[in-house]
């Protein structure tokens, strides 16, 4: 049974977690082009390497980050997103004509 170290709950069975995709920088949805948005939503590096990715501990509803090697499945480090995201992300709302 594979164990993942949750930064909040400690070592837990991998079946309690949900994979959330590669960590990417989100372009501003209000101002970016369709192509940039498509790139963000659909495209991935998807390489056999150490990748920083989102994981979710479903039992406690907690999102965190992990550095995992996608060839060996070795998890090098898991950490709280607060290490990378120091400020609240504000979503600008484009004026939509009704």
């Amino acid at each position, binding site marked *: 049974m594979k164990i993942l170290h949750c930064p909040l709950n400690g070592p837990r069975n991998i079946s309690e977690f*949900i994979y959330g995709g590669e960590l990417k920088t989100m372009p501003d949805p209000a101002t970016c082009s369709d192509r940039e948005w498509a790139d963000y939503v659909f495209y991935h590096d998807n390489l056999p390497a150490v990748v920083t990715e989102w994981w979710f501990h479903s039992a406690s509803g907690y999102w965190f980050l992990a550095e995992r090697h996608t060839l060996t499945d070795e998890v090098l480090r898991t950490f709280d997103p607060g290490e990378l995201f120091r400020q609240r992300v504000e979503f600008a709302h484009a004026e939509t004509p009704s």
Partner: protein
Amino acid sequence: MPFALLKYGLSSDYPAEQDLPPPKALAASYDVVIIGGGGHGLAIAYYLAKYHGITKVAVLEKAYLGGGNTARNTAVIRSNYLTSEGVRFYAESVKLFQNLSHEFDFNIMYSERGQLTLAHTDATVRAFRQRAEVNKHFGGRTEMIDRQQIAELVPTLNLDPGHLPVLEGLWHRDGATARHDAVAWGYAKEAAKRGVEIHQLTEVEDLIIEGGRLTGVKTNRGTVRCGCAVQAVAGHSSVLAAKAGFRLPIVSYPLQAMVTQPVKPFLDPLVSSSALHCYVQQTSRGEVVFGGGSDPYPLYATRSTLELKESLIASAVEMFPFLAKARLMRQWGGITDMTPDYSPIMGESPVENYYLDAGWGTWGFKATPICGQTMAELIAGGGKVPELIRPFHLARFANFQQVNEMGATAASH
């Protein structure tokens, strides 16, 4: 040795048949380089030689022929998809499969068993009705059947697994299976006969791109120039694309399967449950093959996991309780190139003279013939995209024109 037997051995009327010519050095250049010697790469080579007279072709395979997902898949062949684009495409492939043994003069053991997919909820019944209608519209043989008909078709099936009673079934008469290795060998043999070179243990390590055009490939056995190249590397699609300098809307997930020891024939159709994420079929040798959903997170290793095998066995035993007594013989995994819309990516790439045959995920074996034929047409036409594969262009993601086959693919391949 009896003289009568020796006579056959020495007679020129019965020459020893050679499957593939012995390996030789790589040439300095080819018209077409095909990266990946799975069913897809070999089929492209075959149709290039057969229909377009293009024979200065090299198939470069890093390991051995057909040892990737072509060797690992569970060989479900069907066309009962959801979208018009998908059904039209896969139905053409089924037609090509039906004639493949004759075409190769080699038995690929194509066996039209029919495929039964079980619906356990009202929502699934509605989705299946739509699939049946779309399939009929394009000439496929698909209909909805009720519990009694299901019981007659598959008497050993448990119609009330756990809390998920079977409501209706999608019965696809055209559903079939074939010997997957034979498909690869058939294409390889016929392509080689026409002059195509197949180089195993030849890994493409880098691509040579000059002024936005591909002009050659670097391999562990030296550099080769080429007029154009196509990548057909399944789970490694993103790795090759990165060498060409672009990314793909693909994530590589392992997919696992397993097979029991042979038992007496009890199951003719291929049976798949939409809710249990499990499909079961019996091979012509009597083995029972189980397959299911992908691993829960991406990985580039073909290792198996106990968690997935456990859940797969639990579902298979729900469907066919007596299988609890069967012994497993083998289990394995393959790396599948999953796209967000569960449709392939075929056609041109951002690099000139470099073509894509990717995004085949868990569903690409059944497309081997039509993929080979249309990709060969694309290459021979210098990039003119055949009508049948136009919807599968990479640009569909940036244009938000996806071909959504998720509902028709997720657990039934």
